[in-house]
């Protein structure tokens, strides 16, 4: 497995492609057959081998001419949330069954222009609402990791569960994800890969099916910090099609990876020490702190006093925005329309279509959003949540002003749990998965999950680093130092 082409990192593959040691077509075929073999993971839900082979041929031609950007010939998986021209893009929802966009998302267009190869579309929670990939209309994606001596199927996390599973199982060299409350970082943590949520506005949202527009941000999921830096370079940048995308010059993210963090100040927020936090997570966090100290960083204790209110604020703001964004799925413009009875009018069409097309979690959030925005409650819920959001952001502004360069926290409150384990839990129990990640979306900051250890059952655990706005380069470098110190080299044992 270690020598298989599909197991290469992007950086390794780039070197071998440029050296003429391997072709994009060979790499692509290795991934396509790994995917063929991995149906049990249910990571890829729409396969595009024809497109992949065509793009690989074109990449080989570019490589032969010496015109080879970093991603030229690199096979990737694309989350189903991205609109890919002519290819099913349905946000893992029944309501978009059969939808084929007539346009390409900015992120995928940029990736393809850089020579990347699309292997197919990846499983996810419906409309990116979930933390376990169990709300998908395609069925669960499955984590390639299992507990030692235990064949229980585990969640790869969510919402970017298919992306996480595919990268960890070496079905592709890297993948796109999106993150509204932790949907890149939590799944990355559950499968032992690296996942970066950039600063809000760094990556264009154009052509990405919207969930909560003030929180959504696309980012890379890869096998290393370096791979994430390479992917981010191609995904990011100003886009006139997204008025919230920042018109800022892009630094060279990969060039920032020196691993030298001497003199940097790392904050440890005391509010992230949760009641009942597993001992293993405590230890992981303390180990991470020691690694950064050993690397020459100054580690200080900090306070982010409004942390506790991040999840409740999120569960007002995100559903409110979702209820607006998902209003467009009305049975008129996009695919699914319910069968109507004699005499049904347009209102019945809306109601029946949405009842059939949306799954339970999506319906729940749309209705919560409708409630908090309804007359009489708008101030009490929605405006109050936006005020609390301002305070959460202010907490971060204060510590950054005090000279903190990055903040170290656990990425998830546990390792991957069993598929179906949360079936009888109330919805709030599932929401707690995002307790460490959601603050970062509310404050618009960049955050990265880096695998740094295994738990007692042999499952991956990750730490999160949070950076200053627009300083992904510096954040990636700190993550690079942490990655080097942690030396996480584990891979799941193939059972699929």
């Amino acid at each position, binding site marked *: 497995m270690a020598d298989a082409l599909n197991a290469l990192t992007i950086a390794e593959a780039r070197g071998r492609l440029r050296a003429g040691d391997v072709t994009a077509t060979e790499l692509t075929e290795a991934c396509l057959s790994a995917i063929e073999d991995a149906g049990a993971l249910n990571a890829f839900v729409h396969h595009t081998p024809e497109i992949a082979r065509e793009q690989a041929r074109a990449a080989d031609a570019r490589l032969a001419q010496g015109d080879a950007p970093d991603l030229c010939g690199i096979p990737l998986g694309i989350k189903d949330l991205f609109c890919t021209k002519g290819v099913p893009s349905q946000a893992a929802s029944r309501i978009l069954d059969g939808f084929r966009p007539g346009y390409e998302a900015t992120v995928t267009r940029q990736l393809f222009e850089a020579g990347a190869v699309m292997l197919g579309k990846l499983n996810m929670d419906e409309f990116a609402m979930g933390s376990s990939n169990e709300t998908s209309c395609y069925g669960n994606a499955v984590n390639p990791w299992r507990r030692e001596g235990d064949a229980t199927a585990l969640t790869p996390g969510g919402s970017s569960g298919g992306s996480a599973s595919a990268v960890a199982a070496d079905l592709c060299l890297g993948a796109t994800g999106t993150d509204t409350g932790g949907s890149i970082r939590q799944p990355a943590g559950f499968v032992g890969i690296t996942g970066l949520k950039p600063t809000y506005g760094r990556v264009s949202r154009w052509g990405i099916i919207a969930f909560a527009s003030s929180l959504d941000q696309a980012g890379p999921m890869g096998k290393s910090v370096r791979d994430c830096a390479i992917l981010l370079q191609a995904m990011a940048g100003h886009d006139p099609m997204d008025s919230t995308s920042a018109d800022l010059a892009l630094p060279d993210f990969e060039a920032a990876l020196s691993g030298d963090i001497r003199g940097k100040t790392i904050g440890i927020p005391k509010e992230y020490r949760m009641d009942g936090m597993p001992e293993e997570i405590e230890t992981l966090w303390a180990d991470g702190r020691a690694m950064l100290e050993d690397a020459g960083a100054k580690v200080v204790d900090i306070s982010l006093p409004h942390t506790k*209110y991040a999840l409740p604020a999120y569960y007002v703001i995100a559903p409110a925005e979702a*209820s607006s964004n998902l*209003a467009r799925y009305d049975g008129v413009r996009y695919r699914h329309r319910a069968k109507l009875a004699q005499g049904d009018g347009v209102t019945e069409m809306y109601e029946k279509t949405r*009842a059939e097309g949306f799954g339970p979690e999506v319906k729940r959030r*749309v*209705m919560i959003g409708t409630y908090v925005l309804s007359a009489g409650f708008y101030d009490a819920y929605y405006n109050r949540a936006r005020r609390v959001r301002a305070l959460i952001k202010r907490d971060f502004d204060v510590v950054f002003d005090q000279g903190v360069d990055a903040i170290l926290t656990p990425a998830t409150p546990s390792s991957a749990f069993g598929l179906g384990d949360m079936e009888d839990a109330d919805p709030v129990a599932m*929401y707690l998965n995002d307790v460490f990640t959601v603050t970062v979306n509310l404050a618009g900051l960049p955050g990265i999950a880096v695998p740094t250890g295994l738990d007692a059952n042999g499952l991956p655990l990750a730490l999160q680093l949070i950076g200053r706005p627009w300083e992904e380069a510096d954040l990636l470098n700190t993550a690079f130092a942490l990655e080097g110190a942690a030396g996480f080299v584990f891979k799941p044992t193939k059972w699929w």
Partner: protein
Amino acid sequence: MSIDIETARRVAKLARIRVEEADLPALAGEFNTILGFIEQLNEVDVDGVEPMTSVTPMQLKRRKDQVTAGGIAEEILKNAPDAREGFFAVPKVVE
């Protein structure tokens, strides 16, 4: 704030999602769990704090008011469940 069955019915109606009568009590229960969680926000002193409108302070860009795309009605209608003669078709709206 406690959500009763009547409120749950009204919210479902506003959201244009059909919920069967038999499912309303369970839905109201879920709403109450989630809203109970959200109630924590009442502990926070938000006096004098402006509601956040944009997470990154930036001026929205302006551009010339001109047509930059269009003429693709046919392509857009391809994804409609029912389209006729260049239009989206829906059940009768006006009596």
